[in-house]
C-alpha cells in the first residue's frame, strides 16, 4: 500500500515509523523537523495532493505529526472532490 506522506517524511528526515516511533509523534519536539523541513513538507503536500493551504490553515493548524497530516489531507482532498463533484 502506498503512503506518500509517510514515505516522504521517512526519506526526508531519516526516520522509520514503527513501535519505537509512532505516527502520532510530534515531529518538532522529537527533533525530526526544522523550519526548512516544515516548509518543504508543506510544498510537497500541496504539489502531491493538488490543493493550496489557506492562510488560516497555514497559520493556525500546524501539522506536527504524520497522523495529523494524513487526517488533514484526507479531509482536504474529500472536500475538494465534493466541491468539484
Amino acid at each position: 500500500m502506498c503512503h506518500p506522506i509517510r514515505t516522504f517524511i521517512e526519506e526526508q528526515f531519516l526516520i522509520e515509523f514503527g513501535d519505537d516511533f509512532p505516527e502520532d509523534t510530534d515531529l518538532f519536539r522529537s527533533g525530526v523537523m526544522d523550519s526548512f523541513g516544515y516548509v518543504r513538507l508543506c510544498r510537497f503536500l500541496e504539489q502531491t495532493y493538488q490543493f493550496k493551504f489557506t492562510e488560516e490553515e497555514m497559520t493556525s493548524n500546524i501539522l506536527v505529526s504524520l497522523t495529523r497530516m494524513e487526517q488533514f489531507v484526507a479531509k482536504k482532498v474529500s472536500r475538494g472532490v465534493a466541491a468539484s463533484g
Partner: protein
Amino acid sequence: MCGIAGFFELPQHPGEHSATVRRMLSAIAHRGPDSTGYYVDDRCAFGTTRLSIIDINSGAQPLSDETGRYWICYNGEVYNYLELRVELEAKGRVFQTRSDTEVVLQAWIHWGEACLRKFNGGYAFAIYDRAAAELILVRDRFGKRPLFYTTGGPGFAFASEMKAFFALPDFHFEQDVDQVQSILAQWTPLPHQSGFRHIRNLPMGCWMRVTVGRVEERPYEALTLEPSFEVASEAGALDLIRERLAASVALRLRSDVEVGVYLSGGVDSAIVALLTCDRAQGRVRTFSVEFDDAKLDESEEQRLMAEYLGTQHLGVRVGHGDIATHFPAAIFHAEIPAFRSAFVPMYLLAESTRQAGIKVVLSGEGADEAFLGYDLYKETILRAEWNTSSEHVRRSRLAQLYPHLDHYQPQDIAAITGLYHQFAEEKIPGLFSHELRLQNGRFSARLVRSQDGPFRALQEMVRATDGYAGLTAVRKAQWLEYKTLLAGYLLSTQGERMTMAHGVENRCPFLDPAVVDAACAVNLRFDDGFTEKRLLRQAFRERLPGAIVNKRKFPYRAPDGAAFAAAPPDYLELLLSEAELSQIPYLDSRFARSLTKKVLANGASGTSTKENQTFIFLLSLALLHRMFVKREGMLRRRVHSPVERVIDLRGGALYGSQGNFASVT
C-alpha cells in the same frame, strides 16, 4: 601570544618532570615557534612556547619576580599593560623587562585576584607561588584564549590545547557522551565543556587555585549586558561608538611586530581596517578568504575595501577540494566537534598570513554579539511580540529575516508564519530566543543513540546564572551567544585555534569591555533593532564605501557537505563503513550512515542546513575519535620551538634562590 602547559603533583618521579613538560610543550609548539621555556621543581612543572610579539628580546618565559617566589607562564596579551605598569610603578613595584608578562605577574603579586578586573585583553596564564605551593590559573573574560585542565585523576595538568595531554603518563582520551550530546544539540560546547571525559575548559572570566589535594574554580567577572550609563542622544551614541572603537583598535595595535587585518567583506572588519589605517605608520596589509563558489564569495567587497584604504591585500582562494583535503588537520587543531566547515578556510588563511610574515591580525569578531548584528536578535524580538503584533507587522518583519535562507523567501512566508505561531511562547525554560535554532540541534543530537536531555546542561547553566532570568529576551539571546557560539566556535574553532595552528595571534577590537559597555548602552535605545547594527554603521557611514556600510549581514559560510560530495576523500570511509562506525560506541550508526549517504548523494541543493551541520558534526566526531581516542592518523604539524630557558629547582632549592638556572639557546 603563546601556548602554556604544565602540571602539579603529578604521580611520577620528579626526575621525569622535565621530559614530561617538554613533551607537553612540544605538542603545542605551533602556538609558539619562537622559543620554549619551562620551570620545574619537585612538585610542579610548567612552561611556555612563545610567539614573540612584545619585548621580543627580554620577554622570555618563565619569568619570576625578584625574589624567585612567583613564576609565570603566560599566553596572550593584556593590552592596557602600559597603563597598569605606570600604576604599579607608582606603588613602588620595580620592573626588569618591558614585557606585559611581567606587568601581569606584578599585578597579581600586588593586587591579588582584584587585578583581574583591571586587565583588558585576551589571555590565559599560570602563576606558581613556591612559598604557598599553589598554582593560579586565569582565563580572560570573553574566552579569547583557551585553557583546559584535567579532572578526576591523580595529579593536575593544564594546557592551552588538549593535545598536550598526550604527553601525560597513563592519560587516555575518551569522548564524553553527555557532553557530545549537549554540543550537538546547542551547536557548540558550553564554557566548561571540552567534549572529552576528565578534561574541563576553564570558563571565561574565571580563575582557579590549585593546592595540594584541592582545586577551586571561581568567577572574577560576570558578563553584564544591562546598560551601565545613560546616553542622551543618537549623536552622543555615535560619538561614543567612534571614540571607544578607535581607542580599542589603538590598544590592540600595541606590538613590536607588524599587525595585519582580516577583511571579511562585511562592515565590522571594514571598520577595524579603517581605524587601523588611521594609526598605522606604513601601508597596512589585509587578508581575506575567497571562495570558488559565488554564493559564498565576498571577494568583490573585500577588494573594494582594500582598494579604498590602499592596503596591500592578499586573497586566499578556497575551493571544495581544499575543504576536504584540510578538514582533518584543521579539526585536529580545533579539538572540539564542529558544526560547520567554515573553520577550514580560516586554517588556510592563517597559513598564508604567516607565510607573508605576519604574526598578529585584527578582526571583526564580537561586533554581531555586541551591536545585535544577527538575525537571531530580530527573530527574538518578533517572536516575543508575536501575540500582540498585527498580521501586517508580523509579515513585514518576517520578510526582513534570514535573506540568505531559501525557505524565508516570499513564496513560503505563510508556512513560516504558521511555524512562528508555534514558537511564540517559551517551551524550554530560559531558552526562548534559541528555540528555533535548537530545533536543528535536536536533529544533530540524534547521532547519539540514547539521548538523555540534550539541553539539560544548557538549562542548568542559565538557571545557575545570577540575573539571567531578569534579562529581556534580546539580552538573554545576547548572553547565550557570548557563552556558546562566540566562545565555543567563532573565537575558538574558527578563530584562535586556526590562527594559532600557524603561529598567528588574532585580536578583536569589538571585544574590548569598553566597546561592549557602549553597545549595551545604545542598543535598542534609538531604533527597533530591525536594521542590524544601525548605529554602528551610522557611526562610520561617512568614512566607508556605500557598498560596505549598507551591505546586509552576510553570514560567513563555506561549502559543507557539498565539499565532500564533489570528490569524496579517502577518510570518508570512517562514516561509510559499519566496522569503522561501530568503534564509536555511543553513535547511532544506522542514522549516521543514512545521513552520510543522503548528503553525499544530494549535494548542496538537496541538503538542508541541519543535515549539513549534522554531517560536519559526524565527520569531526569520527576524526577526533580516530586521532585522540585511538591515537591514529594525527595530523600534527611538526614545529620546532627552540628551548631558550630552563629553570630547574628540583631537589628542594629555596625560593630565594635561582637554583640550577640554565639559559639554553
